């Protein structure tokens, strides 16, 4: 299972000829120069791609957690006219493939002058477009005892205060799950950046890596493997630290991918 990944990792420190010549994972000698070649080799350093990806991913996490939890609180706890109708529509968007909205969204962002900036990748995340996270949070919020917020309501707490002081602190596990998956999906996203980013200075890691594949052709495998390995590090670290949370999240909610 892990052999391909380890092969890539070992390939990044192997001598060029050794990568394909042998199936052994242990290099005859360790050569880390490929990392420097890959990092500084391009027109823009790989660090710039990493920075762009981090900015987009962190903003996406913040946006998703805030906007989805606001919507989820309204659906789980507040009463208002047409609630069931809106809730059904929200669930309906879960099934809608993104291809349907893709082209008009692109045209919209083009007209707004946002194409070639990171705005189309970040702003939607603040508008709760990932209905899946709303759904996940609604399920969790419903499990929190109603007595808690009813008592607070009696004491004259506003809906905002209940959301902020009671629901959010009690919902850290689900917020963390949403945040982690939001980070990983944004980090791995290739399609969005491919459409919206065209200036190499704004490239994310995924785009940078692909342009790296094209520019190095078939010459420098070890530095290609080195940069590929680096692009996997954030996801791998998250996996290492939050493995339990990730696996419980996927087991209970059936998270995709």
């Amino acid at each position, binding site marked *: 299972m892990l052999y391909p990944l380890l092969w890539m990792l070992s390939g990044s420190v192997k001598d060029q000829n050794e990568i394909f010549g042998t199936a052994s994972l242990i290099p005859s000698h360790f050569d880390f120069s490929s990392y420097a070649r890959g990092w500084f080799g391009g027109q823009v350093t790989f660090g710039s791609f990493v920075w762009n990806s981090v900015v987009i991913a962190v903003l996406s996490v913040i946006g998703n957690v805030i906007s989805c939890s606001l919507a989820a609180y309204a659906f789980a706890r507040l009463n208002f006219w047409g609630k069931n109708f809106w809730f059904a529509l929200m669930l309906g968007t879960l099934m809608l493939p993104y291809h*349907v909205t893709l082209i008009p969204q692109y045209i919209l962002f083009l007209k707004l002058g946002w194409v070639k900036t990171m705005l189309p990748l970040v702003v939607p995340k603040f508008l709760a477009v990932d209905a899946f996270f709303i759904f996940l949070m609604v399920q969790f919020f419903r499990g929190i005892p109603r007595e808690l917020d009813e008592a607070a309501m009696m004491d*004259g707490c506003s*809906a905002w205060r209940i959301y902020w002081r009671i629901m959010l602190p009690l919902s850290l596990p689900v917020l963390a799950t949403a945040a982690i998956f939001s980070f990983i999906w944004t980090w791995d996203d290739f399609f969005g950046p491919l459409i919206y980013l065209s200036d190499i200075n704004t490239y994310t890691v995924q785009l940078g*890596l692909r342009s790296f594949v094209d520019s190095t052709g078939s010459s420098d495998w070890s530095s290609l493997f080195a940069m590929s390995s680096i692009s996997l590090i954030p*996801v*791998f670290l998250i996996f290492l630290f939050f493995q339990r949370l990730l696996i419980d999240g996927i087991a209970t909610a059936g998270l995709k991918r």
Partner: protein
Amino acid sequence: MRVETSYKAPSAFARNAPGYLFLLPWFIGFFGLTLGPAIASLYLSFTDYNLLQAPNMVGLDNYVRIATADDKFLSSMKVTLFYVVCSVPLKLAFALLVALLLNRGIRGLPVYRAIFYLPSLLGSSVAIAVLWRQIFDADGIVNTLLWYAFGINGPSWISNPDYSLYTLVILAIWQFGSPMIIFLAGLRQIPTDLYEAASLDGASKARIFFKITLPLLTPVIFFNAVVQTIDAFKAFTPAYVISSGTGGPIDSTLFYTLYLYQEAFGYFRMGYASALAWVLVIIIAIFTAFSFLSARYWVHYDD
């Protein structure tokens, strides 16, 4: 400290306002980025919009062309259906098999679970596609192994149209981790006393599997099948990276999504691409509806 106030029935506004305020971001997103664009996309699918000139109504022309005169539509749909039909059942079979093995109370379960899950988590990242391209390259590790183990001179898998799609199917199967974890969770929920009773009655392992485990697991199998099928229809990154965006060789990895991308962002045929998008939605909807209809014959819900 409590402040006594005389009770006043809240106005309709006061009752509804908080809900709508909390939903404000979602409303903007829903109308501006989901519902609005979906309607616009339907409209554009009846036009020949190319971003430069105003959209020009062409009626059903786009759909007629898709149905009758577009070879690339046919080949990309064939490639995608082949990918879905091959990769989903195999992926689920592996996921179920490994879940069954892991469920037998072996030691170090969390470690194995993690190892099997990691490839799916890394999922659709470019690095994985790049890795795959190298593994199945003419002088890649697969051919090296074939040479050492069997003395076979393997083909160049990626650049041979007879094999290129299979490499993508293998990549999909390798990432069986997330359905596996859902299977594991499903297996946990089967009451152990059922197994105890069955083994007391002297039922064989195969019988227990086919008479207890499998039927009780059908809702989970169904869920996984639907989710994985929809996901497989949407696959894009591996095909794009492995074929350098062309869908080649000879369109053998031209996934439907890749074709749609080329039409929209390569040739800026936004109207035609919108029609392609709607055709995809309809096909996914038919597949999903068909699974739900068939479900009543093979999915057992205990009630």
